């Protein structure tokens, strides 16, 4: 009886310790995620990207809300253009509802970074075809349409 009591206690303590470690690791990761720079590499010289210290269009419209960093990329890769939201944003793992609704602040920044890169490299942002031909009437079709609409603000930046 005594031994089984000790075993239960030991298991409880070990489980609690493991859980605490897992929670701490998750918090650390969430803090990193919230603080992470979103980055694109632009095939232009740094002087073309950070024009007179101002962020390139359309990142300039965020004003002080955004921290923008420009630095040369290694080799012949051009220039790294990075942006980070100054105000606290919820960690990615907790932002699913906002992401699904298209209201996660990172989505807007990702789109702006991609557009800035396209404008700097090609002079335009390629638009999808219009008018669309898809009727998208089925549930699967609607899902594809919804994913496509979110796609510009999502991804691995």
């Amino acid at each position, binding site marked *: 009886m005594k031994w089984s009591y000790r075993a239960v206690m030991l298991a409880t303590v070990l489980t609690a310790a493991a859980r605490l470690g897992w929670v701490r690791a998750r918090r650390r990761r969430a803090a990193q995620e919230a603080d992470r720079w979103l980055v694109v*590499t632009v095939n232009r010289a740094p002087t073309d990207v950070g024009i007179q210290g101002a962020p390139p269009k359309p990142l300039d419209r965020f004003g002080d809300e955004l921290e923008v960093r420009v630095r040369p990329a290694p080799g012949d890769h051009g220039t790294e253009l990075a942006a980070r939201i100054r105000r606290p944003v919820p960690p990615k793992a907790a932002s699913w509802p906002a992401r699904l609704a298209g209201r996660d602040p990172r989505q807007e920044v990702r789109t702006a970074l991609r557009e800035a890169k396209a404008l700097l*490299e090609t002079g335009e942002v390629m*638009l*999808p075809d219009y008018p669309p031909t898809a009727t*998208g009437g089925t549930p699967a079709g609607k899902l594809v349409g919804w994913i496509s609409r979110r796609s*510009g603000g*999502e991804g691995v930046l």
Partner: protein
Amino acid sequence: MKALCWEGVNKLSVEQVPDPQLRNDQDMIVRLLAGTTCGSDLHLISGYVPAMQAGDVIGHEFIGEVVETGADVRRHRVGDRVVVCSFVGCGRCWYCAHDLWSLCDNTNTNPGIGQALFGYESAGIFGYSHAMGGLRGSHAEYVRVPFADYGAFAVPEGIDDTSALFVSDSVPTGWMGADLGGVTPGDTVAVWGCGAVGQMAARAAFLLGAERVISIDRIPERLAMTQRFAGSETLDYTSTDVAAELRERTGGRGPDVCIEVVGMEAHSDGPMHLYDQAKQRLRLQTDRPTAVRQAIHACRKAGTVFVLGVFTGAVDKFPLGAVVNKGLTLRGAQMHGQRYIPMLLERLAAGELRTSHLATHSFPLERAPEAYDMFKHKTDGCVRAVIRPGT
């Protein structure tokens, strides 16, 4: 205008859709002269590429006449006859600047889908699902061509529409397999697949100096066509042991370069085929890599396997051990057409390449579903069905 629309798994129909519009200053609108069926379209039609919506226009290999240009188009004028690369490249991102056009950073308007699937997205392609940008396809009366100065090429006088049509996709894809597969003079090259791209890969291997090319398929008329027009030896995998034949024909070494041109719906006559089909139908794997496995096993030590066939996701029983322990180079790519098309048009004009034989059948746009049915089931010796709007 009329267009061929995907309406669901194995359902195609010709529908009335709105005309395309210029959306950017570097766009142009092309009136279609001809387009062709492509094996990769069959994966869309069969539902193995999931990001399709009912009403999507399919088709990506085409030739046409310029009817409208955006304000910033410099290299083309209304009336030009152009062949258009199936992949859209901006011409100025790092990938385009390094001739890796199908990896363009700026032409897939749905980058999040590709990034979720592959880590990074590929370039946009005409008529090939919303994962690849959701651009309208070319089986229509008109199509919008973004970044037209980089993706459209004037067809020289003297090259007919049918011959030039295949320079849009099949010829550069085949050429790329031999080129990036590293074919060098004296090599023995094995090519899995005797469709249009496989034939072009075989021909390209010879033009790059290969001493022997051995092509593998099961369809008699395709094997005969490859022998006749590409000049390669052929193997019918239903009547012989391919691995043993290749060993025997290469002095026991195996081919120096193996090019796989079959893709995710591969067939074979062994029990693995049944296993792969069952797993694919149950969605336990997305692709059937039968020919890739064979190529990896057959390739000589320290040789190269180039995967040209279309794959979209994950495969099972992939022989990674053979790749490592035989010191193989394994490469794959979608088609960097802009890199090759001008050179290929010159070779076509010089008579070094022939493509018109690939067009075994011709259909008006109104009968495009019939063309795909014939192409899919390979009836009446169909290698490629050419779809001609306005006929």
